[in-house]
């Protein structure tokens, strides 16, 4: 596809600990189009953050390792780039927002410096010019620019996350990786930040990969969705596909587990059991043990089935409903 911005192929990432190997991401394929906003949904340990860190190539060294696959950004495999070239991509063409704004800022530098630093790194401009643009960025994220010279501890959590966002968008990146950007914030603040991110995304025409565990955030923010489970993408499609016609039993289970504001039911329908141990993944479908519809065939690796155009489900039983393997 011509307008594909990022294309992840067969990515597999492992963490090596003293005792075991953690299979964090297992052969995932994922493409992001120019201007697209994709939500990566999944629970703790599903490998969401690892995907983002792999794209940025900032996996913890030496434990984290990309064992196979390609990450093509505008037809350039990022995994082949020398570190020096990769530094020019980071923060410039691809930027990232982190989960915890409390710890994501250097406590002993002013927020202005930290934003200007990113700008100067990727643009040949004077310090004064960089400072001016950093001030603009602060205003853009709704922080008065007279707070340029203040330190992170003088800001509240929501404000800090705005600073982090300003920093990420400072060089007008083409792709923004947002790793649970609002999870650590209160609901009303979360609404503010999401709202701001939405308008900035439109203003800067940035593609966004939003990583979250909150289906509500995805519904409000994203155009396409990928549901992850045990380091795999089990279902992907547009928000309409996922929210109106979820196919994978895990996705269905997630919706069943959610407390809803508009039903009278006093019982939830949780998924039984727990996610498998990432150091010891079962063969075949990884959701098999928890799946209410598991059959014999699930003991083999499940195929990707396209149930409707653009809606891909990693489940052997999706075929029964008329899907075609891809």
């Amino acid at each position: 596809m011509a307008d594909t911005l990022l294309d992840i192929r067969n990515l597999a990432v492992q963490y090596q600990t003293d005792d075991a190997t953690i299979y964090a991401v297992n052969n995932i394929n994922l493409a992001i189009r120019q201007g697209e906003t994709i939500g990566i949904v999944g629970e703790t340990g599903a490998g969401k953050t690892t995907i983002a860190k792999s794209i940025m190539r900032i996996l913890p060294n030496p434990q984290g390792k990309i064992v196979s696959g390609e990450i093509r950004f505008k037809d350039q495999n990022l995994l082949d780039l020398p570190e020096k070239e990769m530094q020019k991509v980071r923060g410039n063409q691809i930027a990232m927002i982190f989960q915890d704004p409390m710890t994501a800022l250097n406590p002993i530098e002013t927020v202005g410096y930290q934003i200007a630093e990113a700008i100067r790194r990727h643009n040949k401009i004077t310090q004064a010019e960089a400072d001016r643009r950093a001030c603009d960025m602060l205003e853009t994220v709704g922080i008065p620019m007279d707070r340029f010279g203040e330190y992170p501890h003088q800001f509240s959590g929501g404000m800090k996350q705005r600073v982090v966002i300003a920093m990420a968008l400072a060089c007008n990146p083409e792709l923004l990786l947002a790793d649970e950007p609002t999870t650590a914030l209160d609901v009303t603040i979360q609404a503010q930040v999401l709202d701001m991110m939405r308008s900035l995304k439109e203003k800067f025409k940035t593609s966004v990969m939003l990583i979250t565990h909150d289906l509500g955030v995805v519904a409000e923010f994203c155009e396409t969705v990928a549901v992850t489970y045990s380091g795999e993408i089990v279902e992907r499609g547009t928000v309409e596909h996922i929210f109106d016609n979820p196919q994978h039993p895990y996705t269905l289970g997630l919706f069943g587990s959610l407390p809803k504001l508009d039903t009278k039911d006093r019982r939830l329908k949780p998924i039984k059991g727990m996610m498998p141990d990432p150091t010891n993944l079962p063969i075949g479908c990884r959701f098999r043990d928890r799946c209410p519809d598991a059959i014999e065939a699930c003991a083999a690796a499940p195929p990707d089935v396209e149930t409707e155009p653009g809606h891909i489900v990693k489940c052997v039983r999706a075929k029964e409903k008329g899907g075609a393997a891809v």
Partner: protein
Amino acid sequence: MENRRKKQSRLRDIWRQLKKSKLSVVALIVLCLIILVAILAPVLAPYHYAQQNAKLKNAPPSAQHLLGNDRLGRDILSRLIWGSRQSLQMGVLAVAIAAVVGILIGSVAGYYGGWVDNLSMRLLDIYQAIPMFLLSVSLAAIMGPSLKNAIIALGVGTVPGYARIMRASVLTVREKEYVEASRAINASNARIIFKHIVPNAIGPLIVQITMGVGSCILAGSALSYIGLGAQPPIPEWGAMIADARGVMRQYPTHALYPGICVMISVLACNLLGDGLRDALDPRLKN
């Protein structure tokens, strides 16, 4: 029965982490050997530490005297072996004094907070305003030179460090919800402190204690070197170095061996301390 199983599993956990570092294991073995040597000194040492031989003054190493003899003709190897007792005592007993007092002060101050905490911290301020080594030297000198007094002086001099670490640790643990949970099920203050807080807070202190043994051996040898530790003819490594000062020019090895002994024991403590720190630090586990 059940308790034993639990303790074992806790220890096994630490051991599993610890043994990943080969150096720590070596250090542990070395320490055990030194302790063994100290215990078995009368059996292991070929001669008595005070046994002089006028014919063998400053004699070079020989089959009978593997490391030679000192300026009074005493067997150096035997003195080194006997000396391990004094050095180890300094390290272990001084730390025991300091740690017990420090843990007590630290946990009470940390748990109760308020004026108790304030008062004890101000007292520690006074305490710590005197440089530690100066304090130990002064105490030892004032009380009079002897091994016992040196141990007390070292112990008293190092209390504040333990108290502060314990307090900081207790303050962290105190905020944990399980402490609140046990208050909600009617646990008494004493039970909360001794059953929940102290065992969980003591982790950082184990490291400090291990390394503290090393630094007390080091400081103890310094005290002995200036004549404030074990008194002759009882051998102590620091005192042996002092004793060999006069013949340094002709027989440098007389001072070399005890120094190496000190270094190896302290090094072993420090290595083990480093290893324990890594083993106890949950952040390094993943």
